[in-house]
């Protein structure tokens, strides 16, 4: 039905003696919203880091659009169309909200050092386009009022949204969201769910690490469950909810 946008095959990564990610293989179909869940320490962020290039796997492969991207550096991965947000928001604190989102356009623009220093005319158009696109995204996400504010001055929920906007500005094919609902209240989480669905509808595939089960169950097409670095279940949300292994891992043996 859908083509596979991303797949991991037998990913291994350890730190010292600890197997953070052990033999993890799964597929992400194009256009899907796939959730990665699991108890703390299950290896979810490590998995993201392996896909995004921050970490190199010790074994295994990451395949994006049928081409291996294993071990590629983060900036290369970004240029290929994979954007990510972080577990702890990593905005550029002393730059404005607009500048933060404009940075998202980096992979889609080209002016280099020489053109920059000489303020070459062909860079003017690119600069205008960058600014226009950034403002448009801020508008869409309801952040227009904060455009010229310094990023670190924004309330937490808004900062998360700005990081979202910045990731969207890269026009990604695959969006990796690392606990996007962390620290958000019920209403903000609901808005976030709607936002992720809207983004998916524009054609962006989403891989979401989350602890918030309501969000996971409401919007995911498929769910992957990790525990202690290993995949223990994969399937549609309803099946995962009833999976005894998953229940045991989250709630302990008494409830299986």
């Amino acid at each position: 039905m859908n083509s596979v946008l991303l797949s991991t095959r037998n990913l291994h990564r350890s730190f010292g003696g600890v197997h953070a990610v052990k033999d993890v293989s799964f597929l992400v179909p194009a256009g899907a919203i796939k959730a990665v869940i699991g108890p703390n320490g299950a290896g979810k962020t490590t998995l993201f880091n392996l896909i995004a290039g921050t970490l190199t796997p010790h074994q295994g492969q990451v395949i994006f659009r049928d081409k291996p991207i294993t071990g590629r550096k983060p900036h290369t991965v970004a240029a290929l169309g994979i954007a990510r947000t972080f577990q702890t928001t990593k905005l550029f604190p002393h730059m404005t909200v607009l500048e933060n989102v404009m940075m998202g356009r980096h992979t889609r623009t080209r002016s280099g050092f020489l053109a920059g220093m000489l303020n070459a005319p062909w860079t003017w158009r690119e600069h205008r386009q960058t600014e226009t696109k950034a403002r448009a995204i801020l508008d869409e996400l309801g952040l227009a009022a904060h455009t010229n504010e310094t990023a670190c001055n924004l309330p937490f929920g808004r900062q998360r949204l700005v990081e979202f906007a910045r990731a969207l500005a890269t026009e990604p094919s695959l969006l990796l969201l690392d606990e996007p609902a962390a620290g958000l209240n019920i209403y903000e989480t609901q808005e976030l769910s709607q936002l992720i669905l809207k983004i998916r509808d524009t054609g962006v595939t989403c891989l979401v690490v989350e602890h918030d089960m309501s969000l996971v169950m409401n919007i995911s097409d498929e769910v992957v469950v990790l525990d202690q670095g290993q995949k223990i279940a994969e399937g549609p949300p309803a099946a995962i909810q009833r999976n005894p292994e998953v229940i045991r891992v989250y709630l302990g043996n008494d409830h299986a």
Partner: protein
Amino acid sequence: MRLRIYYPVLATAALIVALHLVLASADATYYMTQVTMSAYYALVVIGLCLLMGYAGQASLGHAGFFAIGGYTSAVLTTFNLTPYSKTPLIAQCQSLGLTMQWKDLYGAEILSFTPWVAFGAALLLTGLIALVIGASVIRLKGHYLAMATLGFGLIVYRIALGTPVLGRADGVSNVPPFHLLGSLQVNGRAPFRVQNYYIAWIVVLIAMVLALNLVHSRVGRALRSIHENEEAAHSLGVNTYRYKLAVFILSAIFAAIGGVLLTHYNGSIGPSEATVMKSVRYVAIVAVGGMANLWGAMVMGILLNFLSLRGVFGSYDDTVFGGILIVMMLFAPQGLLRVPRLRALTARLSRRSHA
């Protein structure tokens, strides 16, 4: 790009002319010499400001690049090729116009490379060395990078101090003037004082324009993003290693240009230009001017170097700059011009200085 970022350039140009008129009317044009020298030192500071303030990389060895530029130019324009003038290589250079015949202070006939050739060679050599050093150390963080650059500066100093062809402790003197275009020449002698005052300032303003352009460009934004959060910048497609290396090399070249021009202006260069204290001075000036404030760096560069050259700090010269650095780091790490009240003022003058 907003034109308003160039307003200070015009203001500075006006001030430069005004200063000339003031000095001329007070019959004190001899002050221009120190202002000219300060301008060439300011070039180092501007480049360092890009490296430290925008890309966020430390360098305690930038005097080394200044010296490499200056010494290369000095040696190439003073080394007498006359004994070799019959060899095919030198004969070829002569026919290509790469050499010049001149008489030095003592009346001796010298055949040497032209200052333009020396200038090109100096920049090339500096760029290459910066590439090699930078590629090795740019992956280091914080104080490790600072220490590595410190080491580099020390090496340059020792080489300058100990190498016979570099004049050892005496350095290289008898450096000829640098004929730029027509009758324009970089020359420290009295008749050329006013001309050189303007030459130096024009070079500084060109450097400022290039730096301002860079800071306000896509690359400038990327550099700032690296400084603010390197991991996030990396995840957005910025090749952080390459960008940091490029700025390192660029700042080294700025320093080398300052070195070349000052050497021709003074007619000499010595190992004192490569000392650690010189490097500390440049860092202190960037700190005082405001890490990410190009105009602050330039203003402080001119001002503090001028005061130092005038002897205002007496024998406590190094103490002053070392002290400035300590005080800055303790009380105003973002620089004096970032102090809140002044911030509000500058914010009103230019709504957003970077965008």
